[in-house]
């Protein structure tokens, strides 16, 4: 928890999180409205929205990955604290930092792979079926937010380490 507050002490990080939150919330709301309009438009006026299906897909990906850094910073990833009761506090801190580094590493690799995927999508010209929207920007965003989550974990680890050294 302490390290999370540290992140929010940084102005730019606070703003980044706030922007992500607003964007993701707005996207979810828009997705709901889109389904609403699509369904009733089709039912009452016999005119479905062209491409509602693919816009929903693009919005989904964006909102999930806007949420990823938020979940990471809040430490809301599901984990099991079954064995914590017999693990000494000091060892727990070491373990938590190691896990943070492991997760950061995985997120870093994933971010890189998503970046490569996006570059490849640009070169193939991949787009959606009905509205011909290029898909690469969404993949770039996925890569970016994964990198952001990685950076947040690294920062949180560094902050705990600094705390434990300064308290010694």
């Amino acid at each position, binding site marked *: 928890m302490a390290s999370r507050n540290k992140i929010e002490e940084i102005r730019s990080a606070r703003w980044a999180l706030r922007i992500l*939150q*607003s964007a*993701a*919330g*707005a*996207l*979810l*709301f828009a*997705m*709901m*409205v*889109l*389904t*609403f309009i*699509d*369904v009733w438009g089709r*039912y009452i006026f016999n005119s479905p929205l062209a491409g509602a*299906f*693919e816009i*929903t*897909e*693009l919005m*989904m*990906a964006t*909102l*999930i*990955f*806007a*949420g*990823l850094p*938020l*979940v990471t910073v*809040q430490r*809301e*990833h*599901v*984990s*099991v*604290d*079954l*064995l*914590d009761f017999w693990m000494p506090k000091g060892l727990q801190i070491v*373990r*938590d930092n190691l*896990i943070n580094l*492991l*997760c950061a590493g*995985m997120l870093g*690799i*994933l971010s890189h*792979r*998503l970046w*490569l*995927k996006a570059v490849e999508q640009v070169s193939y010209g991949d787009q959606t079926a009905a509205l011909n929207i290029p*898909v690469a920007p*969404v*993949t770039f965003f*996925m890569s970016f937010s994964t990198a952001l989550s990685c950076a947040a974990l690294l920062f949180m680890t560094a902050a705990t380490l600094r705390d434990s050294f300064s308290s010694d």
Partner: protein
Amino acid sequence: MLESLVGFAALLALILLRVPIAFAMGLVGTVGFAYMVNWHAALAMIGTVTYETGLAYTLSVVPLFILMGNFVTRAGLSQELYDAANAFLGHRKGGLAMATVVACGGFSAVCGSSLATAATMARVSMPSMKRFGYSDSLAAGSVAAGGTLGILIPPSVILVLYGIMTEQNIGQLFMAGVLPGLLGILLYLGAVRATTWLNPKAGPPGDRMPWSERLRALRGVWGVIVLFLLVMGGIYGGIFTPTEAAGIGAGGAFLFTLARRKLTWASLSEILVQSVRTTAMIFSVLIGALMFSNFINIADLPTVLTNWVQSMDLSPLMVLMFVIAVYLVLGCILESLSMILLTVPVFYPMIAELVFPGVPPEMVLIWFGIVVVVVTEISLITPPVGLNVFVLRGVMPEVSTGTIFKGVTPFWIADIIRLGLLIAFPAFATLLPTLMG
């Protein structure tokens, strides 16, 4: 085969070391895939899985059903459900706990998640059970167990994921969950009754309401009925698909909350962000599970398992017992979502091949889906890892986990009875979907 078992062992070890489940599954899945194929393919795999899971149209039901549940909570429907149930049941012995169970069932009809159902109903029903001197174990047990109904009574996020994984009709799965859900309510009422019979002090009766009060309280629940009929009626009336139903349900719940003047900019924003965070958490687990299941797939576990069962010449019921035993054991340790995501792809090809007494062939996977959800419900309340119990501990930190698990025991027995009934009489699950075509 051996690779898969080593993979599962490594996964459990990482999870017990408290590596977040999503990352543990992703790590073992990637390393295992690299071992079976090569690193180039494994690294490409994680990019592809992540990208395409993010862009899955059918999965858009997940955030939207979560959003619907959050709106409904904000609208205060949970309180009205509880008041109504209380008006009818509160004066009985254990009546407040019975009302909790019934209200949980009602709330499940508009909320797709068990955790949300348990958390919401705990806030509503705990204070009055405290006031009337209910034992902590009965009070907490009724909420924890009642909350599990959230994933069985439609709408249900877990049933949607099961339907997508096994290519079953989600509308039919929803219908199949209705009767077992009602059965669950009845058996849980029995569990409350049994608890107070064993220990009358556990649940003293509350006030008796006159019929005029009861009828008035009943008027409060029309919102739940309207929303439930909107979602299920829309699916069966051919107005929208189950995938779209989530958006309609969320939209309806939003309008409802708005009409009740329960929505401010701040609370709207909080609801949206909370739903996004839950979604991102679920999808992290989903993406990790898909990486792991790609490894299991290339290591050929499902085929090996199917062949093994065929070679052993086990009867279908024996196979089912074996599967259920695996679920009960895994359910002690694993969290419900990852348990479903990991095991269903392994088991369903095997189950699909079998003929069960009383189950029409086209209904086997629908019925199996309900069986899986019922055992998953059990996993939510079994120690040591019972997520509903953890949720309650968050809401009422003063009650110990041990007390809650003790209070849950009669409900656990009720669940086992329900599982037995569901297997002995598959019609509980298959009747409604068959009738609805």
